[in-house]
């Protein structure tokens, strides 16, 4: 970024604006989107900022075209992003799958609000966690990150771009209305000191290049359109050449590689914060805005002599089941507060596999009060 247009130092920003600045710092130079509460501020910021950094901002006619647009921009060699909320995320689902199938690095920001349908445009929700993993048809591995503050909106947006480039796949930043509209101090490092990852480019001669041949890390190198490499890319099941070959053998080989390119390297993605976990009897598994009342509740429980701890998932997908399994062998139980009817709790239960109690604590259109989570901790501790 041109130095004069890079924000550095301490700023007072809401989560949406911090997310836009994180994208710019990560090298994003193409944004296509359709404004929607509570993600509108991201589009607004990008509309102002993109021209300043010689980037492109397009307000599309809807979210279907927005998603396609950022896939095309990525093939053009740009780091691209869109931002939306539940209803728009639903519209993006088909082409989110296309991005996964064509292996296109890009970032989708979903500032979650209450659903289903139009739901609660102005109020918080965490109901799109499972949609991120299962919302598009077919078998996919998702990568999704979950910030708890404007600072993390900046940091994790940078990380989302780095992971998208590393794994050549769409990455979802699953934030929410509370974090998006909350303003706090955001510290932005100078441009040169932010670690950035760029997609692997092919080094072989164009005639030897196979666009869908994964190397050691199972990620095929990706040229930009116009680099001189011959590309065929399609949503149909394809072989290493990119040719559509609709057979079970090709499907098995392709889907296996798409799965393993993420799952075999998931340690590079999983990002847990541990708080007072070492001697914990009751563990609160939490993410996003819910982490903040959860942390408070854990502190209150400790004050009352209950050995509570917190495992915060900064990356939701791939799910860190090993960390949960390890805890399940020796803790008394888990509490999973979520602003939904029970989503991440299902993954926790899957990992715990009946070894110990898992208590879901749901709410809707608001964040939990610490005292509610404290009560749940007390119940599990008994």
């Amino acid at each position, binding site marked *: 970024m041109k130095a004069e247009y890079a924000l550095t130092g301490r700023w007072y920003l809401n989560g949406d604006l911090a997310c836009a600045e994180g994208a710019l710092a990560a090298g994003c130079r193409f944004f296509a989107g359709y404004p929607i509460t509570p993600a509108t501020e991201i589009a607004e910021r990008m509309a102002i900022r993109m021209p300043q950094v010689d980037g492109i901002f397009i307000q599309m006619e809807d979210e279907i075209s927005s998603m396609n647009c950022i896939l095309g921009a990525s093939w053009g060699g740009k780091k691209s992003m869109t931002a939306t909320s539940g209803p728009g995320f639903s519209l993006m689902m088909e082409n989110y799958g296309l991005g996964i199938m064509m292996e296109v690095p890009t970032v989708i920001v979903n500032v979650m609000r209450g659903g289903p349908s139009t739901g609660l445009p102005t109020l918080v929700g965490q109901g799109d966690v499972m949609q991120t993993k299962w919302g598009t048809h077919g078998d996919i591995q998702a990568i999704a990150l979950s910030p708890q503050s404007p600072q993390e909106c900046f940091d994790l947006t940078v990380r989302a771009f780095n992971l998208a480039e590393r794994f050549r796949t769409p990455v979802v930043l699953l934030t929410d209305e509370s974090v998006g509209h*909350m*303003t706090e101090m955001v510290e932005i490092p100078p441009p040169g000191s932010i670690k950035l990852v760029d997609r692997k480019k092919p080094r072989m001669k164009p005639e030897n290049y196979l666009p869908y041949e994964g190397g050691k890390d199972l990620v095929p190198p990706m040229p930009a359109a116009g680099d001189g490499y011959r590309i065929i890319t399609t949503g149909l099941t394809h072989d290493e050449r990119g040719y559509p070959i609709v057979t079970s053998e090709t499907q098995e080989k392709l889907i296996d590689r798409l799965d393993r390119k993420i799952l075999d390297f998931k340690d590079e993605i999983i990002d847990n914060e541990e708080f007072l976990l070492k001697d914990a009897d009751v563990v609160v598994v939490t993410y996003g805005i819910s982490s903040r009342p959860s942390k408070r509740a854990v*502190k209150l429980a400790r004050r009352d002599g209950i050995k509570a701890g917190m495992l915060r998932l900064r990356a939701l997908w791939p799910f860190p089941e090993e960390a949960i399994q390890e805890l399940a062998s020796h803790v008394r139980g888990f509490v999973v507060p979520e602003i939904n009817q029970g989503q991440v709790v299902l993954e926790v239960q899957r990992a715990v596999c009946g070894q110990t109690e898992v208590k879901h604590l749901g709410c809707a259109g608001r964040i939990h009060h610490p005292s509610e989570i404290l009560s749940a901790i007390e119940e599990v501790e008994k």
Partner: protein
Amino acid sequence: MSAKKAKGAGVEMEDEDNGDIEVLLGGFGGQGIILSGLILGKAASLFSDKRSAFTQSYGPEARGGSCSANVIISDDEIDYPYVTEPHHVIFMSQGAYEKYVTNLRPNGKLLYDEDLVELKYRRNDIHRFGIPATRLAEGLGRRIVANIVMLGFLTAVTKVVDYDAMKSAILDTVPPGTEDLNLKAYNAGYDHGVKSIEHHEKQAKD
């Protein structure tokens, strides 16, 4: 221990006093309430050695009706980011006063524009500080700076941030070319606040 209300939950719940200072600013759309909250949070976060979280009432009901800005200021990390039982409330409309005054915690400070808010409810467990903020702003030539008058008043009366921090945050935020007017407004509110505090303390002694 003090009872706290969860946002929108409508049930009383308990939390200990955690060192956070909660400030609620209320008025109607167009008075610059939201901007005031942003400036206050900025004064704490960027121009003092504190942390702050700023949120606002956000929804269709906020358009043209009552709106509120919520600021939490703390020396430590802020876990719960919403105001539930404010230490200080600042009201610039009757509607906001009637909607939010009951949340003010005992011994809390109620600051209000005395031309715009009539104190209908009796509460003997709080401290009241009135200022003709809008009238003072009109005296300076622009009623639009009434919110900045209020920020000066708030700074002097509550001391949640110091004079210089708030001044820096105002200058960092207002449009170029309006600095002088806004500083005048800030000082007018601050001076009024210093006098109010002296008067309040004298009364308390008597």
